[in-house]
């Protein structure tokens, strides 16, 4: 039996920039105003999928249909502030018996799949890369678990509180080699990434600022996996940091760096790359209002909400302008197919693809973007998709596109391919590729002539290995 696509999918309007819209994209007031669908910019399945790619790890069919019915702002309400019993879910998942960091990876991936608040996990993943800490150096799974739990608890709250907490996080200090900071020899290993990566960004501080900040953090130690402050080791003398003078402590340094305009700009820029577009950096003028607002309270939820609700987010400037990370790629297959798989195996496979949770490669986290894609990782993505969809092997029969298609009323050789294209790509596919897909998926059915499970698996595999599916 040959799978056929019954009719061409709807013309994708997400990529089309209406001339009237083009002019407005650079206008901050219009760009950051809340998106209201209209005839020129309608609310489509593709837009709903785009939202779920960025604010979650993909969506299943019911979520996509509900989003279409709810419209963008109501869907966002649910993603930003879900009504489900998140506390109960978090309690269950926080009570994990810490084994190794490897088991933590698997537990977190399971949490990403099942969470009723996917945006929270998505943002936790963002901060995990921002405050990148590698478990191989920390060598203490419990400390790593505590750090990620801390990041989760602050992922959509105050960056100020998060930064202060991270400056006292044993795992972070061990990872950076800053577990001992004596006044006789101030340790710059935390002060430097604090300014360069966590706040100001390169070019916005001097070497002297780093040295003086390091002096301010003297007295802090990690002894036997616990944070300790030893007053006699603190340098209480006068310091000068970013133009301010005083007998500063570590908390003062946090305050000072957060007072700098560059910090808010750097963070807004980074979040812009995560939520909106990683291919082109935004103009300073475009993000200026966001940075100004963010600098007032460092409220992450407010910033994320502004970005996600904006006209810019639902414009071609954002659509398909990110390359899916390995986690996004794999969960983008798992979530639509409504299954839960072996995350122990998945964690290992994602590590092979370059995203080893709990083991970010450097203090700067995962570079992302085009770095996710090369000839080797494309072959591995292909193999991972095959393993997930083949119905046997380490992932077993947990993901079955044919069952999902039937569940949603698409049980014919004509309707199933269309359904899967809508499910995985929200119908957004070039006509020539769409025409080629059935040939790829062409396969004979079972002996009784009615078994579509295998052809549908092959078809789903063909879809998720398309270049389009690698984009978020």
């Amino acid at each position, binding site marked *: 039996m040959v799978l056929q696509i019954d009719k061409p999918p709807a013309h994708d309007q997400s990529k089309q920039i209406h001339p009237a819209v083009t002019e407005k994209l650079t206008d901050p007031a219009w760009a950051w105003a809340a998106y209201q669908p209209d005839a020129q910019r309608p609310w489509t399945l593709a837009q709903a999928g785009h939202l779920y790619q960025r604010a979650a790890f993909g969506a299943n069919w019911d979520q996509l249909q509900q989003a279409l019915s709810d419209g963008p702002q109501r869907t966002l309400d649910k993603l930003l502030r879900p009504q489900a019993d998140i506390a109960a879910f978090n309690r269950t998942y926080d009570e994990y018996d810490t*084994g190794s960091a490897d*088991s933590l990876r698997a*537990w977190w991936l399971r949490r990403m799949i099942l969470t009723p608040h996917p945006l929270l996990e998505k943002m936790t993943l963002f901060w995990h890369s921002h405050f990148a800490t590698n478990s191989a150096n920390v060598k203490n799974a419990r400390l790593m678990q505590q750090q990620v739990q801390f990041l989760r608890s602050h992922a959509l709250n105050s960056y100020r509180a998060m930064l202060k907490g991270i400056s006292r996080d044993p795992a972070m200090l061990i990872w950076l080699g800053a577990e001992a900071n004596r006044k006789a020899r101030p340790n710059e290993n935390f002060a430097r990434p604090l300014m360069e990566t966590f706040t100001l960004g390169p070019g916005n501080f001097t070497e002297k600022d780093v040295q003086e900040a390091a002096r301010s953090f003297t007295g802090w130690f990690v002894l036997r996996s616990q944070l300790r402050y030893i007053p006699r080791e603190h340098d209480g003398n006068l310091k000068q940091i970013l133009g301010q003078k005083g007998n500063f402590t570590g908390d003062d340094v946090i305050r000072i760096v957060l007072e700098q305009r560059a910090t808010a700009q750097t963070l807004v820029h980074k979040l812009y790359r995560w939520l909106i577009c990683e291919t082109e950096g935004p103009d300073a003028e475009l993000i200026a209002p966001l940075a100004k607002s963010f600098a007032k309270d460092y409220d992450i939820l407010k910033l994320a909400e502004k970005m996600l609700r904006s006209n810019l987010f639902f414009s071609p400037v954002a659509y398909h302008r990110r390359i899916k990370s390995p986690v996004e790629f794999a969960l983008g297959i798992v979530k639509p197919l409504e299954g*839960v798989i072996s995350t122990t195996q998945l964690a290992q496979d994602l590590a092979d693809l370059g995203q080893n949770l709990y083991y970010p490669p450097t203090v700067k986290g995962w570079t992302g973007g085009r770095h996710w894609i090369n000839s080797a990782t494309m072959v591995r993505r292909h193999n991972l998709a095959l393993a997930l969809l083949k119905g046997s092997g380490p992932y*077993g029969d947990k993901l079955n596109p044919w069952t999902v298609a039937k569940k949603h009323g698409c049980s014919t050789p004509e309707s199933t391919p269309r359904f899967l294209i809508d499910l995985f790509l929200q119908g957004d596919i070039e006509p020539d590729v769409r025409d080629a897909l059935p040939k790829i998926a062409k396969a004979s059915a079972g002996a009784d002539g009615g078994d579509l499970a295998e052809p549908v698996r092959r078809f789903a595999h063909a879809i998720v290995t398309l270049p389009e599916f690698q984009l978020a």
Partner: protein
Amino acid sequence: MSKRLGLIVALTLVVFAAQNTMAAQSLPPANQWIPQNAVISLELTRPKALLELLSGEKATAAITALPLYQKQASTPKFKEFLNLINFMEITLGTDWRTGLAKLTGGGITFAVCPEDTVLMIIDAEDEDMLQKFHEILLNMARSEAEKQEQPNRVESTQYEDVTAWTFNGKEAHAIIGKRLVFANRPEGLKAVLQLRARAASENLTSKAAYQAARRAAGPDSVATVFADLLILKNIPDIAALLEQSSGNPLAALTLAGIVEAVRDSSWLALGLDCGESKLIFRASVDGKTTASTSPVAFAIPNKSGEGILPNLSVPRRIAALSLYRDLHSFYAAKDDLFPERTSGLIFFENMMGIFFSGRDLTNEVLIETKPEIRLVVAEQEYDPAIGTPQVKFPAFALIFRLRHPEQFNEVAEEAWQKAVGLINFTRGQQAMPGLIIDRPFQGKTKYTVAYFSTSGIEDKTNLDPRFNVRPALAMPGEYLVLSSTDGLAQDLIDALHQETEQTPKPLAGTHSLVELEGGRLSSILEANRKTLIQGNMVDKGSTQEQAEANIDLFISLAKFLDRAKLSVGVQEGLTRAQLEIKLNLQ
């Protein structure tokens, strides 16, 4: 085949897998209808004995008392199953136990033949009941086929004087007197019917290997299994498994004598006996007895009366292993045994040279051990004052017997303290807490323990996994005990003193003995239930409910086991193994 029908067929086969006495007078023994090229055959000659054990009052009461059973009993699927059983009972006019006994009482023969052909021959005691039962299945199959609009799926054909049936176009079966013959493909049934027609033609019973295996299995077994190893060893997975164990030093040491015997054998025979709450499996292979010049001779007791010592008995014991292994001969033969692992073994030897102050590992260290190695695994008892880890590992200990304890004790003590020192230094480099060494007494025996201090830790109920370990070295009498905890070391010191006083006899001719205590196994599984459930969730992708059901089933099965004992040795020129399983049906 529908799920329901599948269930009935499966039930039938299970039922049939439990009896035999005298088949229909006019029919020859069922094994004479099995083709000579069968690779594996299973003959259940006295199914009633197994039925009585597994579906008797005790077993039924034990199973129905399980929380897991009670949980399942309330599910719609289970109710559907019970309805089916009721239906069967009414139609056959008997209760299910009697029905089962009558349908399978003549015995069951199962065979796997080339080309994925599976045969099953079931001899009923009651021909009428067999016919009735077949009628029920036939009606259900027809009804199912009609539902699926494939009425022609159920059909029959005549082969000589026999009517052959198929319910799904794939399987084939026929009833001949009191006998039901089932094959997973028509060719299988045809082969059986041809053997029936030509009584004198060659069948499984005319195969020499089968005859030898049957003799080895004994005439009174409830069930016997024959496996043609010459064919099975060609299966890539089995060949790889046999090859793999010889390349891994630990596997080669542990499985020595067993793998070689299988590799050298043409058949495997297995006999099953059962008594009240007890199952005994006896396995034998025809591989040659290992020559004293063989590289694996280190595992074979050569002198008369030589063999392993019985396992040591300690409180809370989960498992115990006793091996006859001459470590000196084993390591001396390393170049023959592991020619591809030379560099790794040289590194190992160099490391041992550090611990043993430059002594030659083969001729100055391993030579000091007698060929008696024992391992004990026990559940731990935690002192609340010290603390309880979040995940509870069992304690384990290795026990060696020394040739010259008075000379070697200090050498061992020095090596052990060096190892603890190296661990402490390495941990210290990573700013991690180290082990504290103490030398307390257990009775009159001084031993050494190293432990992580828990002073300063506020919550002592939720400690890191490392607090499962309190490594200890003890040398009571001529024994050397290396234990993961001091608690187990203390118990072993007492057990070894007791053993020395009683001078136990070795188990002559036996080179390996493993014992497992079901009660303790289930206890430690219970203690780690939450961790195991979480592990199952991420490993298998199960829901929490599924994971709980999986782990609880595992725990329940462990509870059904009172104890299991596996011994392997060489007797009368054959390598033999015996597995005794005592069930806990209380």
